[in-house]
């Protein structure tokens, strides 16, 4: 009996709706046979033709009624399927729980990371024409290397007076953070450290993201003593009013700088690095006392607050120098004083502002630049966690095959197609994924709160934003499908006969786990291993840094700063008052402690006898009193301390500098004269090295010179007297400096704060390691349970034949322990390279050797044994009668 050709038949079945399909197919079948009887060779062609002609409206699917019908059918089926899935998940509680916990952790980490990355990358997008906006900065080379995010002040007017064809607008602004006092009847409140800058209209021409609510942009900053405020700032000063009412009001800066409000702006919404709130006109500088602090025509010094930005007519191609820089740099070389180093002005685009580790954003006090390195590190970690969770899932699902096989076999017998079974399993993984994501969202929310210190404070996360909904939907579907793919394919491909035979233990209830699964679980072990090693290393390094001898004694040292602008006699008064406090053991006036975040440095030149070229060295300066060395217990190796006479210009240098000067013995250094540009100093003593900068930097040359009028005072007390002393001190301080707050710092704390980033890294490493260990342990636990199940017979037989406990446990756990070993071997070089690149940041490293990798391996082993121990023990101890009973 002839059968119509398959392909057109399939096409018919594809496009034809259910109602008509049977009769159409039958009709065509009959006609095919007739056609075949008439002429066998043309029958196929005829059939094709008939099918083709049948592609008409009455045959097609999805007429409106049918659409509704099929939708209804779909949902009914779906509901049914879901019921079955939930029932099955509930029946296999352990494996479901393992999967959900793992997936939740992985997803929560992913979501948290996504929030952070998206936040950091969302800055400064609201600036119009941002691709044409550039910051000019200064690069120094020569005996002094470095960068400064500002340019010399004279450059601003130079660009304005010599317009270049490539520049559309240029804007100079000087960052000066003053205290502000609004003049109004209501509040006399003083606002400390407002984010004020000196600028003119060009600022708003370059940065177009400000809308003017009041005032005339062209004239607002034309004259001196005028200021433009942001709407929020104006409200803070004067209360809520309409923008026009702010015009004409007065604000006093730094107690003595008057300014009239001439405009109100508002920045368009969006994450921004431009946090300035008070825009004072540049003309005010020349017209007031500010001109003593800021010289707009200066070409010699470079201050990071002196900013110069340019909006070019066309974007500057990467790697090329902007044309407008050459006349500027030439002018600098001509007009600036020649020094031992050269300056060059370069440009950086606005798009890199937020991530600029080299230059930082605007000032040291505010938000620092985002670190792309740590962001990428975090990304890798989070993706690894997610992958681990997915691999767990895949492993557990496939390993469970034997129990599912019967179910699949029966379904197939009853007429289910492979596709349907496949989609059922995919649906199951999507359901699991949805449940995990519902749990992951609150977990992510919590982690954003618990780990606040890792995230920028101003980050606001709202899970109802539509991009989050997209993310969640995408995660559920994509990851659900990806992780469900492999198990679904394997399970739906089970052959019926194998599944239903009662005595065959199925090819995938194999003796040993197949290679693919081994790879997955090895990946998990490797990740955990690497993380364990890294966490250990970080831990040791941080401990090392905190405990290392810094070359001076900072124990029990506390410091308090007197206001820098106060008269010196007040400090003397303070001194005389403090000396009266008996609990204070020692006192020392200084400009900074030996090890400090802030430093000043200069270039000292030494001209050896008979040489023409001077030896130039960058030396760090400490201005101190004669008590400095004794106070900090720094040893004086040669010579003596300087005399308390400033005009003698005597200095004490440290060993590093002494070596630099080329002397074999330190004694030979005594009496030598070195000069910086203005002064000649005589070396009278050599002190032992101490760490001037934190342990991330090498030891540097340092010199001490005499300075009688320092503002910071350091003192020692016994620990039990500390709080009493602080109270007394604060009282005296308040009497002498009523307007300033008294802040006492502990030296230990200050030093520890150097390593805040490292401590954060330590904490992060610890957390990630714990998470990774949790996920792998879960996976291992699940797999062990299955292996035990599969091997009960084998264990039973071996026990009967007399095997001991030891060899029995080997049978079950051998393959996993070998995997752990392999993971350790692979993880070691990976961890090594990671650690090397991290340790490069530190000039002083903890002594870590091969033993740390061994330690990591031992940790993993112990962990693994803990996880599988109980189950293995139970398996070994069980009665072989039970396991061998059923055959």
């Amino acid at each position, binding site marked *: *009996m002839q*059968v*119509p050709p398959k392909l057109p038949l399939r096409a018919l079945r594809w496009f034809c709706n259910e109602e*008509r399909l*049977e*009769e*159409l*197919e*039958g*009709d*065509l*079948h*009959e*006609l095919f*046979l007739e056609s075949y009887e008439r002429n066998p060779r043309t029958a196929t062609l005829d059939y094709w033709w*008939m099918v083709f*002609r*049948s592609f*008409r409206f*009455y*045959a097609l699917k999805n007429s409106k009624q049918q659409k509704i019908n099929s939708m209804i059918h779909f949902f009914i089926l779906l509901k049914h399927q879901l019921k079955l899935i939930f029932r099955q998940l509930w029946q296999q509680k352990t494996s479901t729980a393992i999967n959900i916990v793992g997936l939740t952790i992985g997803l929560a980490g992913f979501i948290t990371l996504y929030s952070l990355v998206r936040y950091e990358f969302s800055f400064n997008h609201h600036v119009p024409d941002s691709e044409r906006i550039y910051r000019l900065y200064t690069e120094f080379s020569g005996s002094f290397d470095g960068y400064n995010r500002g340019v010399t002040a004279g450059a601003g007017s130079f660009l304005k007076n010599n317009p270049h064809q490539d520049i559309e607008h240029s804007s100079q602004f000087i960052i000066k953070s003053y205290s502000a006092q609004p003049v109004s009847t209501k509040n006399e409140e003083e606002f400390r450290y407002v984010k004020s800058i000196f600028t003119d209209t060009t600022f708003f021409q370059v940065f177009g993201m400000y809308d003017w609510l009041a005032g005339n942009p062209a004239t607002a900053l034309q004259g001196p003593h005028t200021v433009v405020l942001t709407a929020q700032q104006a409200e803070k000063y004067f209360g809520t009013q309409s923008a026009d009412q702010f015009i004409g009001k007065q604000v006093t800066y730094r107690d003595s700088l008057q300014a009239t409000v001439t405009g109100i702006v508002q920045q368009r919404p969006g994450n921004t690095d431009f946090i300035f709130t008070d825009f004072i006109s540049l003309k005010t500088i020349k017209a007031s006392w500010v001109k003593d602090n800021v010289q707009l025509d200066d070409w010699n010094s470079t201050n990071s607050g002196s900013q110069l930005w340019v909006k070019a007519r066309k974007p500057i191609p990467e790697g090329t120098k902007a044309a407008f820089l050459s006349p500027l740099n030439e002018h600098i070389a001509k007009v600036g004083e020649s020094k031992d180093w050269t300056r060059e002005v370069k440009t950086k685009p606005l798009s890199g502002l937020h991530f600029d580790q080299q230059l930082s954003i605007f000032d040291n006090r505010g938000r620092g630049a985002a670190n792309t390195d740590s962001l990428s590190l975090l990304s890798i970690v989070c993706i690894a966690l997610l992958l681990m969770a997915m691999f767990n899932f895949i492993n557990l699902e496939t390993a469970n095959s034997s129990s599912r096989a019967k179910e699949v076999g029966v379904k197939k017998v009853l007429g289910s197609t492979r596709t349907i079974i496949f989609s059922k399993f995919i649906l199951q993984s999507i359901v699991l994924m949805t449940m995990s994501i519902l749990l992951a969202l609150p977990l992510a929310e919590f982690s954003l709160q618990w780990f606040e210190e890792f995230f920028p404070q101003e980050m606001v996360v709202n899970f109802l934003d539509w991009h989050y909904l997209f993310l969640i939907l995408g995660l559920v579907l994509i990851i659900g499908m990806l992780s469900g793919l492999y198990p679904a394919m394997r399970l739906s491909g089970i052959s019926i006969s194998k599944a239903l035979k009662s005595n065959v233990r199925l090819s995938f209830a194999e003796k040993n786990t197949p290679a693919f699964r081994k790879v997955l679980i090895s990946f998990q072990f490797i990740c955990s291993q690497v993380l364990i090693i890294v966490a250990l290393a970080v831990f040791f390094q941080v401990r090392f840094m905190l405990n290392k001898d810094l070359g001076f004694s900072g124990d029990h040292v506390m410091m308090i700063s007197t206001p820098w602008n106060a008269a010196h006699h007040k400090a003397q008064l303070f001194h005389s008052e403090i000396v009266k406090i008996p609990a204070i053991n020692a006192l020392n006036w200084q400009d900074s402690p030996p090890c400090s975040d802030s430093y000043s440095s200069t270039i000292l030149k030494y001209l050896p006898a008979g040489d023409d070229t001077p030896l130039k060295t960058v030396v760090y300066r400490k201005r101190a009193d004669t008590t400095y060395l004794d106070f900090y217990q720094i040893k004086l190796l040669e010579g003596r301390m300087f005399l308390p006479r400033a005009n003698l210009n005597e200095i004490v240098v440290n060993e590093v500098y002494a070596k630099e000067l080329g002397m074999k013995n330190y004694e030979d250094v005594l009496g030598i004269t070195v000069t910086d540009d203005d002064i000649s100093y005589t070396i009278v003593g050599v002190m032992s090295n101490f760490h001037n900068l934190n342990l991330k930097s090498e030891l540097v040359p340092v010199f001490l010179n005499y300075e009688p009028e320092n503002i910071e005072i350091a003192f020692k007390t016994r620990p039990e007297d500390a709080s009493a002393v602080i109270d007394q001190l604060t009282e005296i301080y308040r009497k002498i400096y009523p307007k300033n707050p008294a802040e006492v710092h502990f030296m230990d704390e200050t030093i520890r704060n150097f390593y805040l980033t490292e401590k954060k890294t330590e904490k992060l490493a610890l957390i990630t390691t714990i998470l990774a260990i949790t996920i792998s342990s879960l996976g291992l636990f699940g797999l062990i349970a299955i292996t035990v199940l599969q091997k009960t017979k084998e264990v039973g037989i071996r026990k009967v034949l007399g095997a001991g406990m030891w060899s029995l446990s080997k049978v079950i756990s051998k393959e996993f322990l070998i995997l752990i070993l392999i993971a350790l071997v692979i993880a070691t070089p990976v961890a090594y390279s990671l650690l090397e690149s991290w340790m490069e940041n530190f000039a002083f490293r903890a002594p870590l050797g091969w033993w740390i990798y061994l330690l990591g391996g031992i940790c993993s082993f112990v962990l693994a044994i803990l996880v599988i121990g109980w189950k293995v023990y139970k398996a070994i101890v069980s009665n072989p009668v039970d396991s061998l009973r059923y055959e």
Partner: protein
Amino acid sequence: MANNAAGLSTSNQYTIIEIPGTNIQDTRDYNTYIYEINTHGMKGTNLGEFEELVLLTVGILYDNAYSVAIKEELNKQTGRKVTISSVHAAVYRLEEKGLLDSRMGEQSERRGGKRKRIFTISKSGKAALETASDLRNKMRNQIPEVAFKNI
């Protein structure tokens, strides 16, 4: 006594009518019903020529009318070669208009185990046929002999 379209004899006055399959229970409804059929048609009871032929064939093949048979009968009766899909189209359209009823018949191996759909003329189908043939006759009868004299 005239036979009206519904096949019921009427006399002049009060006839109580019940036409199964419709909601008509009374002469007034019935008159409206017939009026509507005759003026508006039941959604295009204006039978196309091909549709009329198919309808007639279904009648001829009484209780044996399925698509393939209709196709062959049409070919036999009219000599026209028709594709099965035009038969399908016509027959489904007629069914939608309510002029044909259908039911599923038996399977056969010749059809690959599929059942066939067997069509029969419905009441309105019969009505439509009669209207059509009446109309034809009426108009034919109005043509004077003279028109055909010299043809």
